């Protein structure tokens, strides 16, 4: 049923904007807590599965092949940003290099104790990056720099900022927002915002 008196903006939707989202030109910030300040020198990422683990710093990460992707990103707070350009290492490349085993789930954690869970297939079979540059520049701290995860096909809270640790396991373990009532998977096209969706 229509809302009395509401007409809305002129329509621009060309099939790229998921339901309930609207397009922004700026880049809003969503973080659970304060912005964490990690420098390139301090930053480290450990990938492990309980048996094997490997750590990367800025330099050893950049020894892996760097790729760039241009993707649309969707935040659960309803904004969508089209054609964002990220540069970094594909998660699939990283997992191969770290030589981790075959597991179904990943729990990603950040500096500042943020966590989020993502199925491994969503990290390796899709455009998912360990990103070190946004729009041709280093990533701002408030947007997750120096290094963040980017998983563009899921709501953006899955794209952990200041990524520090990726732990693979057989069991799915809810992360920070997922434990706070948000959806475990978070597909924007199916509007999986909250746990009951």
């Amino acid at each position, binding site marked *: *049923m*229509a*809302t*009395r*008196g*509401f*007409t*809305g*903006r002129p*329509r621009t939707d060309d099939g790229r904007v998921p*339901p*309930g*989202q*609207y397009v922004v030109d700026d880049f*809003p*910030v*969503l*973080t*659970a*807590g*304060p*912005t964490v300040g990690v420098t390139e020198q301090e930053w480290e990422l450990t990938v492990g599965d309980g048996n094997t683990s490997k750590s990367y710093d800025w330099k050893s990460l950049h020894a892996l092949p760097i790729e760039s992707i241009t993707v649309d990103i969707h935040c659960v*707070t*309803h*904004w969508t940003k089209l054609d964002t350009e990220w540069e970094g290492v594909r998660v699939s490349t990283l997992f191969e290099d770290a030589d981790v085993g075959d597991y179904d789930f990943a729990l990603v954690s950040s500096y500042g*104790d943020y966590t989020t869970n993502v199925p491994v297939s969503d990290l390796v079979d899709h455009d998912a990056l360990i990103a070190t540059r946004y729009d041709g520049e280093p990533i701002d701290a*408030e947007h997750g720099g120096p290094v963040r995860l980017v998983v563009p096909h899921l709501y953006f809270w899955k794209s952990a900022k200041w990524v520090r640790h990726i732990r693979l396991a057989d069991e799915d373990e809810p992360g*920070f*927002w997922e434990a*706070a*009532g948000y959806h475990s998977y978070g597909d924007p096209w199916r509007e999986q*915002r*909250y746990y009951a969706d």
Partner: protein
Amino acid sequence: MATVAKLVEETSSARTIVFDVPQWKRHCAGQHLDLRLTAPDGYQATRSYSLSSGPDEAPQITVERVDDGEVSSFLVDIVEDGDTLEIRGAVGGYFVWTPRLASTRPAPLLLIGGGSGIAPLRAMWRSATTNVPTTILYSAQTHERVIYRDELAAHESATVKIHLTRQEHDGYETGRIDSRALNAAVGTGTPPHTYVCGPTAFVEAVTQALMPLHPDASMIRTERFG
């Protein structure tokens, strides 16, 4: 579905919308609603609005008109008494203050809001009992833009400091909420549960200044309005 039961013009650019919601369940202070508006051709727009009501009040939101805002200008200028709006919620489990948190980890409450970011903080001070020492720091552009002006002036148990960034006015602080103001608000006793809410730039500026002053950063929770 929510029916608009009452409208309160808070300032020339902000209004409170009180809803009548059948079977409304008590919410936690800090939670928000998602509002979905539908145009005659089926086009929909959804936005989040914090509940500004205390847990014992009828659900209400307080909306500030944003320039060219698709939804906020509709809510502030077009909505009338008796209209029905599609809502979802209350939602959100992180930026919340509950009596349970207060009893598991007793600490003072420090509420820091910019502009319409004061909305969820009202829900918090309405749910805090008088034995929780409460400090409210609020940043607004001018005296005319201060939301809940009378209620804040009459608040008996909280320390209230309102900063005006674009005007000097009797009884108000002049200028932004800076490190000095934050330092005084954090105090030297038990570190406070701290809630910072408002436009992104405000939340960023305040939390960056706050982090070195606050003995326990895990007690700082933020909500950015976009």
